[in-house]
């Protein structure tokens, strides 16, 4: 299986603050991962883990400080904006908050037609046709009705469907869904997820599904990557990671979900304290101040990413065999 997107040893630094008080925050610390064609890769972590940033680097919405971004085997790390623009047609983002995603002064119809007219040389009528079809595809019917509405006139669920319609109207191959349902009511979530899965099947897409909800990923993802404080700490097939988690953090994540941990019969792992400050992460293993299995070496030396078996990675001294 070839990879549609590959991130090679990516580092993403940000500078925050103003003159005199600048701090460098490393949002992504040497992460490598591949999204294979036709797969759903679930990226899980809490806020501050760097997962959203990583997603955006994979779309080249950020230029990584170090490392490379490959799309269909082509190195797009250093491509200038002008070259990226045409490539953007093939990779799209579904953001978390539907309410900010469409310019409030646009109508839904305008918002959906705009990318079409920019990327394709088609007439306005042709574009209108495609917009109609796109709205029908996501269940916003009757399309004539929704076309003339503004974002604030739609509910959260409807708006997210419009956002998805707009992303899909360009027929992208690679989608980054960043917490696409976290802001929506529980009873609507499933229908949105189902919509994304339908599109994936229909158009042969590959997805990077970013969320803090590992239970959700267990239902949709093929492989899972766990991020903690800017690092990838575990990776593997979804059944492996969820049924036999290796990293203490993954175990704690699963323990923390109500009802689920009892369903799975896993050992309960408690973490003390809170996620550290990304601008000043703990020395050695980043989880060590909170981890119940901390040993001496964890406090001073950062563990390597160990391949326990093919495709199964964990960044923890507990699994280091000399």
């Amino acid at each position, binding site marked *: 299986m070839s990879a549609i997107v590959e991130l090679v040893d990516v580092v993403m630094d940000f500078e925050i603050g103003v003159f005199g008080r600048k701090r460098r925050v490393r949002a992504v610390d040497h992460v490598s991962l591949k999204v294979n064609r036709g797969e759903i890769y679930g990226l899980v972590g*809490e*806020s501050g883990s760097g997962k959203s940033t990583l997603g955006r680097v994979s779309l080249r919405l950020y230029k990584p400080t170090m490392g490379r971004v490959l799309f269909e085997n082509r190195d797009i790390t250093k491509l200038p904006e002008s070259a990226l623009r045409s490539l953007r047609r093939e990779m799209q983002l579904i953001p978390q908050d539907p309410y900010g995603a469409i310019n409030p002064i646009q109508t839904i119809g305008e918002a959906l037609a705009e990318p079409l007219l920019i990327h394709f040389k088609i007439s306005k009528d042709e574009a209108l046709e495609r917009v109609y079809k796109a709205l029908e595809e996501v269940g916003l019917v009757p399309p004539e009705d929704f076309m003339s509405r503004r974002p604030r006139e739609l*509910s959260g*669920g409807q708006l997210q469907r419009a956002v998805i319609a707009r992303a899909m109207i360009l027929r992208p191959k690679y989608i980054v869904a960043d917490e696409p349902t976290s802001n929506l*009511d*529980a*009873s*609507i*979530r*499933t*229908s949105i*997820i*189902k919509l994304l*899965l339908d599109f994936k099947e229909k158009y042969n897409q590959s997805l990077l599904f970013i969320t*803090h*909800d590992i*239970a*959700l990923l*267990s*239902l*949709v993802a093929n492989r899972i990557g766990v991020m903690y404080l800017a690092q990838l700490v575990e990776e593997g097939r*979804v*059944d492996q990671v*969820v*049924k036999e988690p290796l990293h203490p953090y993954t175990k*704690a*994540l699963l*323990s*923390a*979900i*109500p*009802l*689920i941990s009892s*369903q*799975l019969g896993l050992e309960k792992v*408690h*973490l003390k304290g*809170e*996620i550290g400050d990304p601008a000043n992460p703990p020395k050695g293993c980043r989880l060590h101040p909170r981890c119940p299995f901390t040993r001496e070496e964890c406090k001073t030396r950062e563990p390597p990413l160990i391949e326990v078996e093919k495709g199964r990675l964990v960044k923890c001294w507990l699994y280091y065999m000399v």
Partner: protein
Amino acid sequence: MEILLVNDLWVRYFTLSGVVSAVSGVSFKLRRGEMLAIVGESGSGKSTLGLALLNMVPKPGRIIRGEVIFDGVDILKLDLHEIRKIRGSRISMVFQDPFTTLDPLRRIVDQFEEFLIEHGVDRAKARTIVREYLEAVGLSERIMYSYPHQLSGGQKQRVSIAMAIALNPEVIIADEPTTALDVVVQKQIMDLIDNIKEKYKSSIILITHDLALALERADTIMVMYGGYAMEYAEKKELFNNMKHPYTKALFEALPRILQRDLPRSLPGYPPDLRNPPPGCIFHPRCEFAIEKCKREPPPLIEVSRNHFVRCHRVGELL
């Protein structure tokens, strides 16, 4: 044994665009040391209900009917001075957004102290109590001298909880206390609340949208939809014998680990409370709705001991 008794509570918002029936005829009992979870999605009325218990419904809302009997007294009938004595000290509230409780311009220790002093705590003892309760919620002394913006979401929420328990209230109302927090911190906060329940024998009303959280932690659960109580039962009974179609739908919507079928979702949208559908407010989205459901609002029926369901078809459906 009953510390709180709520009878037939109705709350309406009188807005420019219409009258919103936010809470319609809700009743329940709360025993000492019991955790009741009020579960509902946005628009279910659960937050309004929480505020109504302390007569804190903001304008243009008004409690138009009902009683909240605390320790034998209907607190809705108390005047401002008397109810202020109860708020914070005998019944306290923790909000989803700590911004509403914490003053961004003052240090934690100053706010906390002033809060205690206002409720009659001796000035000399106040600081010690602050230290003691911050420690009880797992915060270091350093936090005392910080400003709210210097703290993380989890830390702020712990401060709110510390303030909510410092006067040893008999009832704590927690409105979505962990929704804005990450799942690991969420567990820590809920463990803390459990400890408080055990140690101080406080009663807890947990308002949440997360049915899984309710099923894991609460003793009793009340499911609300469109302002109505749809189902009410003890946890185990609810888990084993869920009767209301909405409760079942909420439960089906919970992800089941590794099951590759997606949880079933509910069609349609939450009701417009200014113009609710006739009959049962849930009927437009209910797969079991029959003619009767469209015409007559169903009454609350006791299907077994302490298990109430508001549904016409509760007898026939499994």
